[in-house]
């Protein structure tokens, strides 16, 4: 996380936008895979509590934000409407870390996820610039 913050600080606005896009694509994909089907709010509460207690630590993103970004990625986008972009990014980062560490996922799987997200983000940003 320290490394991320240091790198993030040195980036310009375009680079930050790109990182945010990659993060969002990767997080959404990971959340969809982790919570396949229709998870109840209780499933999400349970996951976030366990993540904060065991993996991320209590000083990560607030519980409310973490629950909202997960549910927001799973068809409850309206929950994100009242959140600041910075808070969304912090919660997504925190929960992406938790999901990818849940079952000690192999580094190559994480690399694969990020490579896929980079491709999607690049296409998205290119499409946006062309508009």
């Amino acid at each position, binding site marked *: 996380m320290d490394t991320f913050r240091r790198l993030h600080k040195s980036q310009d606005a375009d680079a930050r936008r790109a990182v945010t896009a990659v993060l969002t694509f990767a997080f959404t994909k990971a959340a969809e895979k982790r919570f396949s089907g229709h998870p109840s*709010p209780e499933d999400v*509460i*349970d996951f976030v*509590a*366990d993540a904060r*207690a065991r993996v991320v630590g209590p000083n990560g993103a*607030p*519980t*409310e934000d973490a*629950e909202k970004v997960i549910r927001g990625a799973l068809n409850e986008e309206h929950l994100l409407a009242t959140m600041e972009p910075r808070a969304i990014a912090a919660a997504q980062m925190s929960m992406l870390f938790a999901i990818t560490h849940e079952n000690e996922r192999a580094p190559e799987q994480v690399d694969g996820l990020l490579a896929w997200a980079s491709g999607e983000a690049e296409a998205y940003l290119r499409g946006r610039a062309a508009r």
Partner: protein
Amino acid sequence: MNVAADHVAAVRALVTGDDDAFDRLASDAEPEWLYAFSSLVTAVFFAGTQFRFVNAESRPDIIRFVARSRIRHGGDEAGFSPSLGEALMGAAVGINPVPSELDEAENSAAQVALLKDLAGELSFQDFELLLATARSELNKMDPQAHAEEEGARQDPAPARASSTLSPRMYWRPSSASKRRVKLRLPGLTFWRDRSETFRPNWIRGVRLPLVADLDLRPRGVLRRARCPQ
């Protein structure tokens, strides 16, 4: 403040879900009565949290406890945020300062829900011990109330109400937690001018004091009495 036996009975009814008994005791109560009652709820909540969780190392356990409590009380419908639940419990065990600028309704919802779940993990004797300890601590602020309470000790104990306690597992101290024999109850001091703290905060006709209105500096350590088996 005089925390009397019927205040204790009302908290017992609130926690065990005995709505009839609770309504009988609290529905038409005077503000003075409600003030003592709500103070007792807060004191028992803090004492119960300290009984269940030991110190800052308990933070992951508190996070999980609050999450399970929110699930039991309806998830989104629980009426309190996880951050508030964790902050209140954390304040009780010294992890963080007492939260300020609390929303009164949310504060009440959190304290009552969490207290119910704390009590659900306690044996009947331990819960009664917490009630008695909290009552005693509050009454120490009022010599006359303290004397009345001492006199009432001669009265027979209330009928065992275990049938109304949550039937799910009672929390039995493990061998590790048997070392937790100390119970800390914060010194509870209320503002002299009650009008400052006496804002409407209704939960089933009951208002709870804001935690931020209490002086929660520890006033010493109470040794947990050994309960008769």
